[in-house]
């Protein structure tokens, strides 16, 4: 089929009055199972080398190419053309994710996003000496499973930049940072959970979440983001982390 790309462009070097604009590109001989990323490459490689976007793995695991496709956040490498073309001209509309400063075309400034990530202490904390036998710390598979869902996060920012609360207030840490905190808060081996809950109970923490639920469908890893945020809220309210996640209701995904 032939398709029309409608792409939001912005060139910061086009003079003092650089402004974003829409540009259309026509592509011929597109297979319906081609992916949006491949078609962006065709535009860049065959028609306009200045079109700029981030990408790397092209298989949905690196998180580079989150963008707003027909108004919804997706990874361009994980979307088939047939699932997003619209109208008589088979149009696909692509623009940068919202809420972060646009630097050029589809490339946004990721620094504010990673700054929020760093705020929640997104790393394992356990100050006990390691086991004297030189082996691993012990953990039951059930304790491992309660935080399995949030270990899927690839920091693509699709959730955070789909969140109206984040659009309204960029100081809100956002869903991705909470997902990252969740991964450690509910890890039975981790000792930093109280500090993380303290950070997330601040005004720009979890309570800015209004349960709008944009984040969950935006996640290309199918993480139940809103649920994870809810579990963190509950842990803050109860002042403990035990008994909040019922192992029987853990989203069954990739269990070995």
């Amino acid at each position: 089929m032939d398709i029309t790309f409608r792409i939001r462009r912005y060139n910061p070097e086009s003079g003092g009055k650089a402004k974003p604009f829409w540009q259309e590109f026509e592509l011929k001989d597109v297979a319906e199972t081609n992916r949006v990323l491949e078609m962006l490459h065709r535009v860049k490689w065959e028609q306009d080398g200045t079109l700029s976007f981030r990408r790397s793995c092209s298989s949905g695991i690196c998180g580079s190419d989150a963008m707003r496709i027909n108004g919804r956040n997706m990874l361009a490498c994980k979307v088939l053309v047939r699932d997003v073309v619209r109208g008589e001209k088979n149009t696909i509309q692509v623009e940068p994710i919202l809420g972060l400063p646009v630097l050029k075309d589809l490339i946004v400034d990721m620094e504010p996003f990673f700054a929020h990530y760093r705020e929640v202490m997104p790393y394992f904390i356990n100050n006990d000496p390691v086991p004297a036998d030189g082996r691993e710390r012990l953990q039951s598979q059930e304790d491992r499973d309660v935080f399995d869902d949030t270990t899927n996060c690839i920091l693509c920012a699709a959730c955070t930049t789909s969140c109206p609360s984040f659009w309204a207030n960029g100081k809100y840490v956002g869903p991705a940072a909470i997902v990252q905190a969740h991964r450690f808060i509910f890890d039975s081996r981790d000792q930093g959970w109280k500090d993380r809950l303290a950070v997330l109970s601040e005004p720009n923490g979890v309570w800015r979440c209004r349960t709008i639920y944009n984040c969950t469908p935006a996640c290309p890893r199918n993480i139940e983001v809103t649920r994870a945020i809810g579990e963190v809220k509950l842990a803050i309210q109860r002042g403990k982390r035990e008994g909040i996640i019922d192992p029987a209701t853990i989203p069954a995904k990739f269990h070995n």
Partner: protein
Amino acid sequence: MKIHKHEVVIIGAGGAGLMAALYASKDGADVAVVSKLYPTRSHTGAALGGIGAALGNLEEDKPIWHAFDTVKGGDYLADQDAALILAENAVDAIVELEHMGLPFDRTDDGRISQRRFGGHTSNFGEKPVRRACHSADRTGHMILQTLYQQCIKNNVNFFDEYHVVDVIMNGDVCVGAVALELSTGEFHIFHAKAILFATGGWGRVWQITSNAHSLTGDGAAVVFRRGVPMEDMEFYQFHPTGLYGLGVLLTEGIRGEGGILLNRNGERFMEKYAPKIKDLASRDVVSRSIYFEVRDGKGINGSNYVHLDIRPQTVNRYLAEAGETRRIDEDYIRKNLAETLDVCRTYIGVDPLTEPIPIQPTAHYAMGGIPTNIDAEVIRDASGTVVRGMYAAGEVACVSVHGANRLGTNSLVDLVVFGRRGGMKMAEFVKTAEFLPLPNNPTAQIEAEFQRIRNGKGKTRIHELRTRMQKVMMDHVSVFRTEDTMQQAVDELIELRRLYMNDTFIEDKGSKYNTDLLEAWELGCMLDMADVTAISAINRKESRGAHSREDYKDRDDVKWLVHTLGYRETDDPYAPTPTYRLDTTKAVNMSLADSDPRFVPKERVY
């Protein structure tokens, strides 16, 4: 020009780079990590199945058995001292990853869970062993995330989206690197006592690859142009089950669960090539078998792919034929191969529960690369002379632990073990080493090369050249090789370089995020990798591991139990017609075979 001064500079932020950063900074060394991607975008994250270590959590296992499997899997070209270190250090390194918080799956008694993986055995090949430590089917993702998290915790300096484009030498000593800051287009100098390259592989040299778009061999090309040889470049692994047309990897676990490879006539062709273990033969064997079928016109629709069938009725039919009692159903597949179902549906719109999956071999992993010793120090010749201040680890390096063919899971083992060793070695080195002065105007040559690319007034698109390179390498320097066809590839590469140097243009004339310019520069790196791969492959007149020649079908341990070192002879790093020299005098380390006959090369049968 901004000059950044750090004792240790690490280039690349995948598993090897981050591991090195953590261990180099442990004793207080000042470390910076420079990467063309945000660290979490690195391709370590794409590794699926597991990381091998003889923890023995579920059954008896020993590092020496892991070393044996590594040596045998590598068709005896692996250096045996390095293979032993890989296997021994893996145990400590993986326990340390757990201490850093990595969420491994667990055994019933709460230890790290382990599973079987192709080629990993107990007691010197006796039977399969559970050695692969895993975290669901995203072990690489967990390793990458955990290491990045620990780097954040330890305040490692990161220069994200700084693309390293040259290495700075002072005589024979490595003193720094030049990077282009993507957001501004400005060049920066990184002045260091020690530089470690951890830039990964160059799968994008081939048309069908499992590798990320960013894997263009930059790090290897940069040091190659400054006189460091490339070791064993003829050994490049093609994974048999890449998704047709895309190369996205499908796990070996599909065949482990009973998936069958079928040709256009619906024949289970692996019965012919590996009567004993059939579809579960090693990667190089299966890839070659697919190639044979395609060549005989037995690809699907006569095309260059075959089917991988995991439908329960197919699997159960063959289980019954084999006299096995096990049967599978759709729920079993949904549970055990969830990621596979997702990948097939997402990328090609195929539902493996109702139709077979089209697959073809996909360029996957470089066994060769920048030669190093067992401490990740780069060496410049067959006698092991160290390039002072220069280190390499991970896929970009060739220790060599993988020899002629890498075993599954050992890529992750390699990058944690040698990233860790390199980090420790650099920490020790910088305690006594001084910052040596930078040469005058160290960015002049690389800036001129970028000017040349930017100002090109030719008529050939970079994309066209890249596509031609990828096609000729896929056709002639991949799974199966002959002198004639590889020579055709060399000739085409000469023509492509001529066009690259004289007849290209780019459209983006700006400074900020000029990915048009960077892609053009990356193509130059890939042409270097393609050249040295092709000439090394022509030169090795035998078949061993991933290097399989129709005109020299047998392994030749008398003549070819040696590593290849490929040198770029031309001093000018951007010469339009570079010449190369091959040295095949670097002996394979046989230290284990000296005292144990089981490590003496023999025919590799599974």
